[in-house]
């Protein structure tokens, strides 16, 4: 699905990604952990081609979707317009509203379809952002800190939301500093430190994954 070979990325003179090699299987959920500044977000941005890598290769077969940490909903459009704007440009003939409403219903925010983003809570914005990326039928969804700023109950909701996204056959890479959240959802956890992969492991093989992984922070 996705293969990164010897990926390096520099900002000015500091190496932010240092020889990253990852191979990701279809329909898996990969957690990308590490403290702030470890390179998680940069890695996602490189995969999405929002940043240009300095060396190495990224091969991806499949549509990409991206969920920003701060959602980046379009504030001058309603929730429904946010969802159907891009698909409508790419395919003018099709009516995308029904599909959009179906996704909003599945994510439990159908009643917000005609609201503007500033009227939504953090959790609702999160769902709308997820819905908007799902409209593009991504096969690989990149999520940047999907639980930042959410309370514990809403974080648990995000776990089940992303589980349901996986059941649609979507592969995911989730960058988060929240190990508790990642061990709940990820098949595999990769920890970055100073731009290097320091561990790549399936949490289910560990007895106490959080304790084990914390040592690598």
């Amino acid at each position: 699905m996705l293969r990164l070979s010897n990926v390096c990325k520099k900002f000015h003179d500091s190496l932010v990604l240092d020889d990253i090699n990852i191979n990701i299987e279809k329909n898996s959920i990969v957690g990308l952990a590490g403290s702030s500044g470890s390179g998680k977000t940069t890695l996602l941005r490189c995969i999405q081609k929002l940043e240009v890598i300095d060396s190495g290769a990224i091969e991806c077969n499949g549509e990409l979707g991206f969920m920003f940490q701060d959602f980046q909903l379009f504030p001058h459009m309603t929730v429904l317009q946010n969802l159907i704007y891009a698909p409508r440009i790419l395919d003018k003939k099709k009516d995308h509203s029904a599909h959009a409403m179906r996704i909003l219903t599945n994510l439990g925010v159908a009643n917000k379809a005609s609201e503007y983003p500033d009227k939504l809570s953090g959790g609702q914005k999160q769902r709308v952002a997820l819905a908007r990326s799902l409209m593009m039928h991504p096969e690989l969804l990149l999520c940047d800190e999907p639980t930042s700023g959410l309370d514990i109950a809403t974080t648990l909701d995000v776990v089940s939301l992303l589980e349901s996204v996986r059941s649609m056959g979507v592969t995911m890479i989730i960058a988060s500093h929240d190990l508790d959240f990642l061990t709940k959802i990820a098949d595999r956890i990769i920890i970055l430190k100073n731009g290097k992969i320091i561990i790549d492991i399936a949490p289910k093989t560990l007895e106490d994954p959080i304790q084990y992984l914390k040592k690598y922070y």
Partner: protein
Amino acid sequence: MAGEFKVAELISSILFVGRGITITLQLLTCGILIGLVFGIIFSVLRYKGFGVIIINRLISILRGTPLILQLSFVYFSTPGLLGFKLSIVTAGILTFGLNSSAYVAEILRAGIESLAKGQFEAAKTLQIPNFYMWKDIILPQVIRNIFPAMVSEVIALLKETALISTIGGMDIMRTAQTLAAEQFTYFTPLCIAGAYYYGFVLCIEYVGKKIERGYGYAKA
């Protein structure tokens, strides 16, 4: 009888000063149009990295020298430089338009820079083509953000058009001065001119507020 005479005189004074409205509004509307067109051209060129140094210098000069100097320069030095004479109104429209374009370009730059980089990136991740991104995602937000500043610019330009009187343009200011010279009093003519200008400013503010309310969604 004396009272009636005064009212009639006042009305004729108001009408006399009112003859300047056409020129004032002509300068304002044409000036704003030129200002918008060149302001947008300047900021797009600058954003794309074309002629940045020249445009920055031009904007700096336009904002850094007195408007009355620019107006006199355009009107009095074009015959010597270009070999033909511009009409007073043309010189005014050109000067006010170019001067305003410098301010519009700066307002636009601030508007685009204030928009989160993430909005460009979100459009990119959703595969929205450049043209549509600018038309439907970026510009509507930029225009909303800069609208109050643009209204201030229109008001500033309206007041600046009064400078045309210094090169003989028969605008509201000049008709008021003419009337003052005839009546040997400045009080009434200048009050009338002031009322005209202030009335137009109130109209611009009113329309501006109306439009602003149309953009009534709060910032995300």
